[in-house]
């Protein structure tokens, strides 16, 4: 299954930049059964990385305990209009996705 759409929004707040990221991912725990009764294998995002102007500012490790279609909010220190933000993820099956945007 190809990685679904990903979206980020970075807005200037009070001394920090609000960063919201939406990811499409099944985040399968490996404990769910499909309609045929077979266990759906584990398939979940393990790593989430946030970079500002090329520098990693958040390095996150997550598990299958995070909800399907994960949504994260982070806060970047300061930040100025036009700062480049990149958010990427890698899952346990080696699939990955990333999205880029600028602070608005």
């Amino acid at each position: 299954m190809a990685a679904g759409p990903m979206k980020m929004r970075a807005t200037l707040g009070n001394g920090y930049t609000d960063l919201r990221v939406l990811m499409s991912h099944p985040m399968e725990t490996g404990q769910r059964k499909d309609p045929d009764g077979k266990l759906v294998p584990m398939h979940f995002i393990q790593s989430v990385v946030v970079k500002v102007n090329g520098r990693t500012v958040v390095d996150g490790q997550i598990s299958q305990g995070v909800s399907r279609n994960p949504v994260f909010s982070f806060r970047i220190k300061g930040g100025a209009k036009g700062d480049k933000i990149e958010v990427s993820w890698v899952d346990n099956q080696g699939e990955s996705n990333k999205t880029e945007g600028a602070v608005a």
Partner: protein
Amino acid sequence: MNRIRRALVAALAAGLLRPLASLAAAWNKDAFGAKNAADALKSLGAANAVPSHDLVIEAPQIAENGAVVPIEITSSVRGTRSIMVLVDKNPFPLVGKFDFAEGALPFVKLNVKMGETSDVRVVAEAGGRYYVATREIKVTIGGCGG
């Protein structure tokens, strides 16, 4: 141009250009595989975390559905470098570990899965010491309707 391209391909093949995966912190198999909170905390080196009011958990007391439980964490413990999130009663309690470098505030909001009413345990690491806060969230399975 062709020579540069060939060199790049060779470098990739030789594994000299690291893919996205290895640039981030390695996934902590032991901690994420722990079946109870105590073991997970031990794996993370946080077994002696002390309670702190500077670690704030914003979350509803009742979650209509355990599939998506929103949790917002803010740490005002000075020098917080990492925030860990655990759901005590989940089959694998550790749900996330976020490392913050200079440039990000120690803050995260995420949606977690909860199998049943449970304590949510948040641990912050600052200057080699660990701090903890907990919050109970009740989980109901809602009835029919929009």
